[in-house]
């Protein structure tokens, strides 16, 4: 076993385990924090795949941004610890059967129908330049539209969250 493999399995284990806790945990804050480890594990796998830029974006956007906001929301929710989320104890047997069949079929197809191409891994090349070129040439319209969309969302969020403080003052 090489170093590469060890790290891969480490990250995979982190991702799967924490993802499992995210789904099963009864405490919503625990779920949110475990999501952090899921994202982190995914980041590691991105790095191993040679997608360094995507990995950093994952770190920046998901951990540094989205997850923090999520935690903000969760933490400020009323009575966080006493929230009772039902985790599917009602129809557990039909659910297991249904998902089992679906999952079995999918794995069977993947296992038997796919033509696996085995070739040595590419040496890691920096992807930043390529990404930058693509974003500002082929996909420039999408890029700009997304930017505008996000801006609109930002302004909308700000205007919703805005509150008049004057009523409090007297």
């Amino acid at each position, binding site marked *: 076993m090489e170093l590469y493999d060890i790290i891969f399995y480490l990250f995979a284990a982190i991702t799967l385990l924490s993802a499992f806790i995210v789904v099963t945990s009864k405490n919503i804050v625990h779920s949110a*924090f475990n999501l952090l480890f899921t994202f982190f594990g995914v980041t590691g796998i991105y790095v191993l795949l040679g997608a360094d830029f995507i990995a*950093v974006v994952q770190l920046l956007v998901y951990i*540094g941004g989205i997850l923090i906001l999520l*935690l903000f929301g969760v933490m400020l929710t009323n009575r966080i610890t006493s929230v009772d989320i039902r985790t599917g104890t009602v129809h557990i047997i039909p659910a297991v059967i249904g998902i089992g069949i679906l999952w079995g079929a999918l794995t069977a197809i993947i296992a038997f129908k796919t033509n696996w191409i085995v070739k040595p891994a590419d040496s890691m090349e920096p992807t930043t330049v390529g990404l930058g070129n693509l974003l500002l040439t082929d996909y420039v319209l999408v890029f700009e539209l997304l930017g505008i969309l996000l801006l609109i969302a930002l302004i909308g969020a700000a205007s919703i969250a805005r509150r008049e403080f004057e009523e409090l003052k007297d």
Partner: protein
Amino acid sequence: MYNFLTELTGNEIIAAFISAMLPVVFIVPFVIFGVLAERKVSAHIQDRLGPMRVGYHGVLQTVADFFKLIQKEDIIAEGADRKFFNLAPYLVFVGSYAVYAALPFTSTYIGSETDIGLFYIIAVSGFAVAGILMGGWASNNKYSLYGALRSAAQIVSYEIPTALVILSMVMLTGTLSLATMSEMQTAYFWNWNIFGGAEWAFTKLLLIPFMFIAFIILYISTLAEVNRLPFDMPEAESELVAGYSTEYSGMKFAMFFLAEYGNMFAVSALVSVIFFGGYQSPFGYLGNSLGLQWLIPYEQLFWFALKGILFVLVQMWLRWTLPRVRVDQLMTICWKYLIPYSFANLIIIGLITLL
């Protein structure tokens, strides 16, 4: 470094482990020095003596404190969420430690010679926020939670001016790699980015004032990112007791401390790499003039540490001078002042580079 160790030990796992542990060899002595320096600087600014007991003029005070902290009882409040409470200090430390992976200590030692080092540093500093939030929440204390929330809001906001300034520098230098950026500012101090970069041209003169503005913006926002006064909202002693670290004691508290001081050096090093040539000597190398090539990395390490420590000292100097800003003023400074200025600066630097 990694390759060298692989050859030396013959096992890449051990080599990877050793090269990953190397920054610890730097951080721990630095923290011991940093805490002492903080106390001494504050003492002398305030006409006091500071620690004087342990060792000559108290130089071993932090070592003694460290041993004291190890021995301390590890208190976990009853209402705390034990798992996350225990995990949080380490997560915060991981966040600050991960930054060191991309810092070029010398031209030969850099943790990861990745091409996107700057971007990585911005991203990874968000990791500490998660740790702080976790610690604040798990403490089950209102002050801690306030501290954590403030900290998160603060760090997320101040990433923007940092990123904008870094963006303008990336435009100027055309690289995201810290090693390359340092390499470009080689030889003498007038080649540093703060003096307009390596090329001699009319643009260099034009750039200098805007570089200074960029430097000040970056320095202020890094101060905020590492929660130093005047932006120490999360800890805000007089308001929130000790913020997110209120409930911590013993070694876990020391972890927070380690992370804080580690972060201080990391951002100072970042500033020195971006504007002050990183590990480059300002006056050329002694090793070159003496013909001793092996000396150069050590000289570089010296300059790197010196510049970093210098900025850390300025942070301390500021801390003992200024009052704390209020939490909404912190946001005002960020959104109404730093971001517009850095935007304008970005555009102007872009225009000048196009010239």
